[in-house]
């Protein structure tokens, strides 16, 4: 059997947890009922791989079919790997009426024109996301299915999410995307994270935001724990105020899980007690990185508990406001002026 198929299948079976293997294979629907029943999912991964290889040979499945299986697995588990967000700029007049078949055709034809050997698979998910799997080859070699790039795009929105893209492949993919979505340019949105759902929710504004309002919804009563009536919080007023400001800056309820925020400083050193540093002409370069399992939750908590001063500084509130977690701060303007 083809070596690539073998390697791809091996890797895939290793990656998919045993408990999900059955459902994924069922969704794939490339195996007959008898074949599916003959697989014993309690066996070791090695044994399962051997079994599946045998079945695939029986069905004469090619690397394209295995790629399909991989795509199903990735779509079901989008929160693995590292995702980067990009933004399409300057829509043309017909950008808003691009529909799926048109996009698929255009993308495939543009990318194939740019690079001879490339394997493209496009699938539409139930939540309107268009998933694209690209295996890159070049003029002389066949597409490498072991290092595919995944692209996720929602039609009629300017955002594209990419995973595993090298710098050589980037201009080719950008060109194909721009042409097929009828925009004029694409740029880095400066937002990245491990969870696709998190960065998508942040950019598409799918989390609960808090705004000042005259008519707060009466149904949104939070179940306050009835505390002892004899205990009175001394600074309840200011605590509530801080909580409100923290929620207005970051949002309420479950927040999208970002893992880091990076601030690259290129400003002049300003501490007057340190003459050597202030006398330098070049700006002071420094990188500050905040890391957390749930960055926005940590920032919100630090604001509401008083660790970070309120009103929340625009440096921190820009993360959800602008949907970015990489900032370059220069001396030119007040607050973060992201130039990249």
């Amino acid at each position: 059997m083809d070596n690539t198929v073998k390697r791809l299948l091996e890797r895939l079976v290793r990656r998919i947890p045993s408990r999900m293997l059955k459902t994924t294979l069922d969704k794939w629907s490339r195996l007959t009922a008898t074949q599916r029943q003959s697989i014993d999912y309690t066996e070791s991964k090695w044994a399962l791989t051997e079994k599946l290889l045998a079945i695939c040979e029986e069905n004469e499945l090619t690397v394209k079919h295995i790629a399909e299986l991989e795509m199903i697995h990735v779509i079901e588990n989008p929160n693995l790997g590292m995702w980067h967000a990009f933004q399409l700029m300057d829509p043309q007049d017909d950008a808003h009426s691009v529909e799926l078949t048109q996009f698929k055709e255009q993308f495939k034809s543009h990318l194939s024109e740019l690079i001879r050997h490339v394997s493209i698979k496009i699938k539409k998910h139930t939540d309107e996301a268009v998933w694209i799997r690209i295996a890159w080859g070049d003029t002389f070699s066949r597409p490498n299915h072991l290092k595919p790039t995944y692209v996720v795009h929602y039609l009629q929105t300017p955002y594209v999410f990419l995973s595993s893209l090298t710098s050589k492949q980037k201009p080719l993919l950008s060109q194909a995307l721009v042409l097929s979505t009828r925009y004029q340019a694409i740029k880095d949105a400066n937002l990245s994270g491990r969870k696709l759902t998190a960065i998508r929710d942040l950019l598409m504004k799918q989390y609960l935001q808090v705004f000042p309002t005259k008519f707060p919804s009466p149904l949104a009563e939070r179940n306050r724990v009835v505390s002892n009536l004899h205990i009175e919080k001394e600074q309840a007023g200011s605590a509530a105020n801080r909580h409100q400001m923290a929620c207005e800056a970051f949002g309420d309820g479950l927040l999208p899980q970002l893992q880091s925020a990076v601030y690259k400083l290129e400003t002049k050193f300003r501490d007057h007690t340190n003459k050597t540093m202030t006398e330098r002409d070049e700006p002071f370069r420094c990188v500050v990185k905040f890391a957390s399992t749930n960055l926005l939750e940590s920032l919100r908590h630090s604001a509401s508990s008083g660790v970070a001063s309120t009103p929340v500084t625009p440096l921190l509130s820009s993360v959800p406001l602008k949907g970015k977690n990489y900032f370059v701060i220069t001396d030119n303007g007040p607050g973060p002026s992201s130039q990249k």
Partner: protein
Amino acid sequence: MVCERKQCASGDRTEVGGVVTQQPPKSKTCKRSGCLHRIKYVQKNKEKDSGNMEGAPAKGVLSHLSLLEVKARSRKTQLQQQSRVMELKAKVEALKTQREQLKAQIQTHQDLQKLRLAMDKQCADEEEENMEEESENSKLLRLMARHTQLKDLLHAHHLIGGYDIIKTRKGKGACVSIATAYEDVFLDTFNLEIDLKPTVKISRHNIPPFIPLNNLAEQNNMQTDLRVFLDTLSKHLNAFAGRKQQLKLVKEKHKSVEVMESNVLCSLLVLLFTVPREKTAVLCTLDYTDHTRCLPTRVHLESEDKQLPDSPQWKKNCTLLMETPVHKALITMKKMGSIA
């Protein structure tokens, strides 16, 4: 009181220097256990008249002193009574002034109501306001009436599902809440925070990215005419919410109809119908190119049976789909037997 029984050694000497206090003792039995002698209430040296001072024995002086004490006490109560009287008089004054204030408030309120009635009637009749020479008071009254009129108007606007607008940051900003509704059901609420000074600019919002907010702001000249911009935005959002709701109802209530394609903006819908009996498939494409409307601008039918889209029944269905919301049109089509 002294127990008179000679054998009793209780020493219950309650007599004070021979002068007996006015009050008779409560218990008339000697307290010493064993002695059951009833103590006689002996009034030794009963009080003489106050006049008797000179030459009085020691007991007489003491009785005189006690007389003076009683007098002093009664004088004190007299004083207390006097200050109490003054207190009450002061309270009466305070209550009188409060009554005057309340009367004035009631009067202002009544004047305001009359003025409001007159103003509302004027608005209805569209007469010219006659601005005669008015005193400061009546000018103020007119202003107050106008203020309550505007507040009621804003409240009514909120009740019919229009947008709310409130001041934030001490007049430097405003927050607009746009409610969406479809078929008498309130759906999502969208919010915009706007900076008013120095220029009118949107600072924060939770409007999804497929609504072209910046385009609308430019086209409708948000700087000069905020109302027109908000009205257009409200139309877009309400139409989007309506289309989204229609899609949701189609998926819930018409399981026999398969949704082949849709998008996040709900501006395109492709449905697959099955004709009963013949079991032919009909593909129906609904284009909602006017994003301010809930009804499609174009309906296109395709079928394996080439004659079908031209049949009178299906031409009628086409018109029906153009003029009725899709979930309702499907009910009618099912009743007519066009689709399963």
